[in-house]
């Protein structure tokens, strides 16, 4: 028993080394540029594929493996530098959420670059020459390569630490991490340093990817799988802390390894499969750390965020004399099925569902100032709960509220943690939550149908035609959107905005900001759950994809494209996004890349979103003499 624990611990430490290298790069980049690089997992993936190609080019042997790792790392560093120069440089002054969306655009582009270059199949990578065997410890075999990795991670960490503390460049990097404007006022060229740091961070991720090859084949899911883990590691360790990154990587990896080691355990007559609970274990570790130290083990408490006055657009009070555009729109929506074909009716049904999804995210993000990178958790939870209830014999009329209630319950749970964080840490936490929800749906075969999902979930006879379901959606989702809009100009909205604009002042006048934010998350979660429940009955089936990271980012993209601090923005964003997506997906197999480039361009050109930018232009014109 003890021997098996020791073996799993060693195995965990080997995984921790890889995780640490990626997290270290992410933290370095964040420290200096204040950008959380979503594409960091993509650099990891790119490193793996490049090492495979190098190995194929020069053949096996020491040069093939170790040369491949070095070349891949350097190549990824160069790719990182190019991306920094062409894209990131344009967004350093943009709001941090927008930066996340831009770098997610890079994720999508790199995904298709890999698909185009290396094809869709998993590629088995080379084994490390001379280290393919195993060492026997306590009568159990442990791969020699794991032992090497175990040492290599901390070793590279040490090199980076020496670089930061013992060289002029490192000293300047640490200075810029603390106060980049003061560093510039002392003559330090920020642009050059940012490129250098970004390249170094990318290089570390690429190196980790190449070193991961003997343990897993190069595949297309490496990017998002590792980035979710890395986000958990940085939240647990504390953003910006080098030792924190290592300790957190070790804790997470070892706990996961132990879960696998424990395997099936019989407790109170039921069999618990611990090996399937790895992600839940990760969640519990993170939860405990966040309760005790919300800023992470080695992090420092976040200073109350100063929101730049210019970044907040005043929310105009709705002018009831201008009701007629909304009235006209309603009329048009009601008349729609009479005019257009069946296909368009389905598309518009989708748009309405996603408009609700986006509007619910807009409430907590725009009005509440809380970034969520895992809003799909509620959407998917609503969809799954409704589908499971339906499969268990509940009718449509019962299944829909079940979905909403389940999503609300999940929001109660997640929200409790979320209100303890803010900014990018919060964004990473929500992403991790969504990833855990995904894992549960993916692994709990008996209830959720696992990777196959569930099929045959159709609305009752009365709503079976596409137009009838369209009207039902319009009624329910439309009412929910109006409720969200109304809440913005109700006490909940006022308190939320007060907490967003100045937490300290809001608390000083007696507002419990956390409770207000929690309520908003529950309202938004319920609304997203309704959207999910409506979605599953319109499609007739569902799969864990509903909960995946790209789905969360879709919602985020809709909100940001439309304009985060506006009411109509998210809805406009949903219309633009779904229409574009529908069109792009049909036009090209490389739709990820097209979508990614679109996201990058939109975030660079319209930093306030479409509606927000238009409103800013109008205000400028009105205020001009």
């Amino acid at each position, binding site marked *: 028993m003890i021997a098996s624990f020791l073996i799993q611990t060693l195995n965990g430490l080997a995984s921790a080394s890889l995780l640490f290298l990626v997290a270290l790069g992410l933290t370095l980049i964040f420290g200096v540029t204040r950008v959380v690089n979503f594409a960091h997992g993509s650099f990891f993936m790119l490193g793996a594929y490049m090492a495979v190609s190098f190995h194929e080019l020069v053949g096996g042997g020491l040069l093939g493996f170790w040369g491949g790792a070095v070349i891949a790392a350097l190549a990824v560093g160069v790719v990182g530098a190019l991306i920094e120069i062409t894209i990131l440089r344009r967004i350093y002054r943009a709001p941090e959420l927008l930066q996340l969306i831009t770098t997610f655009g890079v994720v999508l582009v790199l995904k298709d670059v890999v698909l185009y270059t290396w094809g869709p199949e998993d590629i088995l990578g080379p084994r490390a020459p001379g280290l393919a065997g195993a060492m026997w410890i306590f009568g159990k075999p442990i791969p020699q390569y794991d032992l090497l990795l175990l040492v290599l991670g901390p070793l590279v960490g040490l090199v980076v630490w020496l670089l930061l503390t013992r060289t*002029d460049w490192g*000293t*300047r990097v*640490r*200075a810029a991490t*603390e*106060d980049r*404007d*003061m*560093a*510039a*006022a*002392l*003559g*330090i*060229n*920020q*642009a050059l340093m940012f490129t250098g740091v970004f390249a170094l961070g990318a290089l570390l991720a690429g190196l980790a990817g190449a070193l991961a090859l003997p343990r897993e084949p190069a595949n297309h899911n490496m990017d998002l799988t590792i980035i979710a883990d890395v986000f958990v590691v940085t939240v647990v360790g504390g953003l910006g802390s080098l030792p924190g990154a290592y300790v957190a990587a070790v804790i997470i990896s070892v706990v996961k390894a132990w879960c696998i080691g424990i395997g099936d355990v019989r407790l109170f007559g039921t069999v618990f499969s611990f090996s399937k609970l790895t992600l839940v274990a990760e969640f519990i570790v993170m939860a405990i750390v966040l309760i005790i130290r919300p800023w992470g083990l080695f992090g420092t408490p976040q200073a109350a965020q100063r929101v*730049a*006055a*210019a970044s907040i657009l005043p929310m105009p009070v709705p002018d009831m004399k201008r009701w007629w555009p909304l009235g006209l729109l309603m009329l048009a929506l009601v008349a729609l099925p009479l005019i257009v074909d069946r296909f368009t009716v389905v598309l518009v049904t989708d748009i309405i569902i996603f408009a609700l999804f986006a509007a619910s995210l807009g409430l907590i993000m725009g009005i509440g100032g809380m970034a969520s990178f895992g809003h799909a958790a509620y959407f998917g939870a609503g969809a799954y709960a409704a589908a499971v209830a339906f499969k268990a014999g509940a009718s449509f009329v019962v299944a829909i509220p079940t979905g909403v209630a389940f999503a609300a319950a999940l929001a109660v749970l997640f929200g409790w943690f979320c209100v303890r964080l803010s900014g990018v840490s919060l964004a990473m936490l929500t992403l991790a939550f969504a990833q855990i929800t995904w894992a549960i749906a993916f692994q709990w075969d008996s209830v959720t149908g696992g990777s196959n999902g569930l099929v045959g979930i159709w609305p009752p006879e009365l709503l079976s035609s596409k137009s009838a379901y369209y009207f039902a959606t319009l009624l329910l989702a439309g009412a929910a959107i109006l409720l969200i809009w109304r809440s913005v100009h109700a006490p909940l909205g006022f308190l939320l905005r007060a907490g967003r604009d100045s937490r300290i002042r809001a608390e000083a006048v007696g507002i419990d900001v956390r409770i207000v934010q929690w309520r908003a998350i529950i309202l938004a979660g319920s609304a997203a759950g309704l959207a999910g429940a409506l979605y599953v009955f319109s499609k007739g089936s569902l799969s864990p994809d509903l909960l995946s990271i790209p789905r969360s980012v879709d919602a985020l993209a809709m909100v940001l494209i439309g304009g985060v601090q506006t009411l109509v923005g998210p809805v406009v964003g949903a219309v633009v996004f779904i229409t574009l997506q529908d069109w792009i997906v049909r036009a090209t197999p490389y739709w990820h890349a097209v979508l990614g480039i679109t996201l990058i361009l939109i975030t660079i050109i319209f930093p306030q979103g479409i509606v927000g930018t238009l409103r800013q232009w109008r205000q400028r014109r009105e*205020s001009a003499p």
Partner: protein
Amino acid sequence: MSLLEVRDLDAWYGRAQILFGVSLTVEAGDAAVLIGRNGAGKSTLMKCIIGLEAERRGVIRFDGTDLIGAPTHNIARRGIGYVPEDRRIFMDLTVDENLRVGRLPLREGESVSWTPEAAFELFPPLAAIRERKGGQMSGGEQQMLTIARALMGNPRFLLLDEPSEGLAPVIVEVIAGAIAKLKARGVGLLLSEQNLHFARAVADRAFVLDRGRIRFAGTLAELDADAALKEQYLSI
């Protein structure tokens, strides 16, 4: 040609205008003081010159080259040192490391470079705490370090934003002495002050700034002679 020339400078934070048509000049080896109440725009003017934060329009010329639109690090490399009001010492770095960050290569035609040792001659207390981190230093030590750090870039011109604010009289004396020595070495100086006594000790020329506009330009003696002006713009 003046070393520093500011002409018709307007500046904004977002949509709020802070400076309105500010003009002033400072010669090499001269020390000028900006006097004004809190919120008059003194710090904003300094930030405009070094190229931080504020949006600016107008002319800022240093040794004949226009600084408007130039990136901050280029402005610093041309020979302007910046000592901000809140000091902005790198808290996680030691005294030595803070100085190392400030180091810049010599410009063409210059031969004498500032070294940490030379800076410690100006500010002797720093020599004893070279390995101490910025976060563990007293306010006076931080103020000395922030001036020393600016000197490492071999500035021909120094912006000092309220260098005497909140310091013990002993430290104020050290700093006044250092400023006098720098002036003697031919460094141009623009400092902002609310404290007229300190201003008299170190500067020869004065500009009175009030709500973003220059209200007076002349010698300190002339300013002292004008009681009405002092009453209107400087008394609290």
